[in-house]
């Protein structure tokens, strides 16, 4: 819980700093404008879902590096099914999500059944799925034509609050995903078992916990959510190209989760922390765009903030443990 307060404080500080710095001579504010805030919330929604996805696997003590490539798979196949095959959205959407979940199942079975390292399995996945998609689409841009008009509401829709500002549907989607995840993690036996497995798999197994099944489930949840976010991304952009869609998104996802207090050694983390971590990532990117003349520094600033956060966290922990 201490970690959540830390990250909330950091987020607050960055928001205040950016808001103060982006005031304009005419009294308007580029950061606090309804347009910018709505856009920001939209991106937080999509990237937040990816961070929750990553957190599922990290909590078991594993890692999923293939998240960005699963985004790519979902992003390229949805337009193909709708436009090229003429499927109904009611068929295409479940099909894409089912395939994403199947990818997670495959990862889980390799990790649990063959005892392969999660890092290796999902690194190969990262390369494999994007490569296959590039060949499959011949590197062509996959667009919807006019087949996704209704479906695009998922990514671009908004629930108006005032004339200028509305809550994006992606943000609502994230809140629903987060609420369900929080329910699973905190209120169910499966959630308790998931965290016990992440903390000490051996002891959990010796307590009769079905550790293997839970680990597989975590990979399935991760890829399913990544596929869902991939659907949102492609609907948001209105097209996807296999060579770039979702590229590097696994790192955004993992960084958001870790920044939000999900420990890489497993068994630790809160959904609220993940939300704050994912939000901080997007606010930082937004601030760099608004305050600088380009986004060239984005990776550098994100990297520096995460490093500083990790160092501060470790420093506080040491100070605390030395006192005891």
């Amino acid at each position, binding site marked *: 819980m201490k970690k959540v307060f830390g990250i909330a404080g950091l987020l607050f500080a960055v928001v205040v700093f950016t808001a103060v710095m982006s005031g304009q001579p005419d009294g308007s504010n580029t950061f606090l404008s309804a347009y910018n805030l709505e856009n920001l919330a939209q991106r937080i929604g999509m990237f937040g879902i990816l961070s929750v996805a990553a957190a599922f696997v990290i909590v078991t003590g594993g890692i999923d590096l293939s998240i960005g490539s699963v985004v790519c798979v979902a992003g390229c196949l949805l337009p193909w099914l709708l436009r090229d095959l003429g499927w109904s959205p009611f068929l295409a959407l479940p099909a894409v999500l089912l395939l994403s979940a199947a990818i997670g199942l495959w990862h889980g079975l390799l990790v649990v059944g063959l005892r392969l390292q999660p890092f290796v399995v999902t690194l190969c996945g990262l390369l494999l799925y994007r490569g296959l998609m590039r060949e499959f689409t011949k590197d062509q841009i996959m667009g919807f034509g006019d087949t996704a008009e209704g479906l695009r509401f998922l990514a671009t829709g908004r629930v108006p609050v005032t004339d200028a500002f509305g809550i994006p549907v992606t943000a609502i989607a994230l809140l629903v995903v987060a609420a369900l995840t929080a329910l699973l993690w*905190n*209120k*169910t*036996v*499966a*959630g*308790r*078992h998931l*965290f*016990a497995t992440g*903390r*000490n798999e*051996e*002891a*959990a*197994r*010796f*307590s*009769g*916990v*079905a550790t293997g099944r839970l680990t597989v489930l975590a990979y399935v949840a991760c890829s399913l959510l990544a596929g869902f976010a991939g659907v949102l991304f492609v609907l948001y952009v209105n097209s996807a190209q296999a060579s770039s869609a979702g590229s590097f998104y696994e790192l955004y996802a993992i960084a958001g989760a870790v920044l939000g207090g999900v420990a890489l050694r497993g*068994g*630790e983390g809160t959904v609220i922390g993940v939300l704050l971590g994912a939000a901080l990532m997007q606010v930082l990117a937004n601030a760099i765009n608004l305050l600088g003349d380009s986004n060239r520094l984005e990776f550098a600033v994100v990297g520096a903030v995460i490093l500083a956060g990790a160092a501060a966290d470790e420093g506080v922990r040491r100070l605390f443990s030395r*006192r*005891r």
Partner: protein
Amino acid sequence: MTAPEAAAAATAVLLSARGIGKAFVGVQALQDVSLELRAGEVLALIGENGAGKSTLMKILAGVHQPDAGNLHLDGQPIALPTPAAALAAGIALIHQELNLCDNLTVAGALFLGRELRRGPFLRQRAMDQAAVTALARVGLRVEPRRLVGSLAPGQKQLLEIARALHGQARVLIMDEPTSSLTPGETERLFAVVRELRAQGVGIVYITHRMAEVQALADRVVVLRDGRLVAEIDGREATPERMVAMMVGRQLRGDRRVGHAPGEPVLEVAGLRTMAWPAHGVDLRLRAGEVVGIAGLLGSGRSELLRALFGADQALAGDIVCAGTRLAAHGPAAAAAAGLVLVPEDRKLQGLVLGMNVRENLSLPTLRSRGAWLDHGYEQDLAARAIRELGIATPHQDQVAAALSGGNQQKIVLGKWLAAAPKVLLLDEPTRGVDVGARAEIYARLHELAGQGLAILFVSSELEEVLLLADRVVVMHEGRLTGELRREQMSEQAILALATGMEVA
């Protein structure tokens, strides 16, 4: 050196601590502790877990800094800000959990941090040769090029000692050095300790085992609740006296009165494990019966328990527990049939150390309350277990890692008792558990057996086997080589069977 000088050197005070105090957040771990270690003596340091033994030892080894008091080496005041400073002053700590890199060679481990070198290059052959001499000093005969990971625990222990001596250590602090050794290895270690004493090394020996104190100690100091409560001559240290001083009260160590056993609850036929694939084990356990499995390390005892519980898959065999046949089963299925295991490695297999007392206690049985967490059930279960087993914890939310070994073991026991088992398997039920908690665990097991629970336990401590068991089966190289009823049980009889000797 003349004879009187040598005699003086042998009795000179090497290391002394005066008025040592140390507090951790809110807890006074040590208060006004003074002790002296002379050259050429073995000073046994005993006390219950949490009495302050490890804190004191870490202060002597430079790991912790005292809040009060000071240290003197050879009569000169000395500060030990780091473990490296202590090593440089000739004080070496040999940890209970051995700190050796398994991937190094024996010579490499011995010279780690002070390698012989020519420029940036290692002088491998020179180190190998020097290693032979250093190893001979502790009676360890292994190839210098052998990998540390391939050594037995006892050999690793000797290697650690060789390493300390090689660094010119004059003070050795040994923390429960025999906890993972076989009886043979323990004898070897004792011989080395006596040899070092004769060479003038001062040894602080921390242990739970009274027999070792009697075998080795010149003097015994007893810590209780962070204070030094007694210092006695080694020759006057009887187990009863030491235990009384450690716990500050008399303990009931009665052998239990056997009950008439009831119906058979566990029947095992032809069970074969990976440890000794060629030999099958047959076993039958009745309700209310307490059966001990004795045998040497590596005789397949732990593997037998793990296979019964389904933590490892058995190669073959029939297991029937309370009418349920178990085959290719996992721990969950075993527990459902009423068969549970308190495993050997408490920290790795018994507990999720990062979770709190309540969460650990409810872990195996939560599922029986439905898919949603039942907080009321958890709290009731934890409150009952804490009360009935006497788990000393400030509250249910305490992280399990913060408790002493004895209290941790009570949690492992408690979490399985909540599953209402018919058969309780225990692997080394009191390893690393202090005498007080030990007596409480024994009493609870007696009580449970009286209520009809069948108990099957593995123990390397013969005293424990003799105290607890109605019947002992002895394992030797994967086979049950004999069975002793209560009236036939003695240390000699068990050892004879465990080592494969035929008894008349």
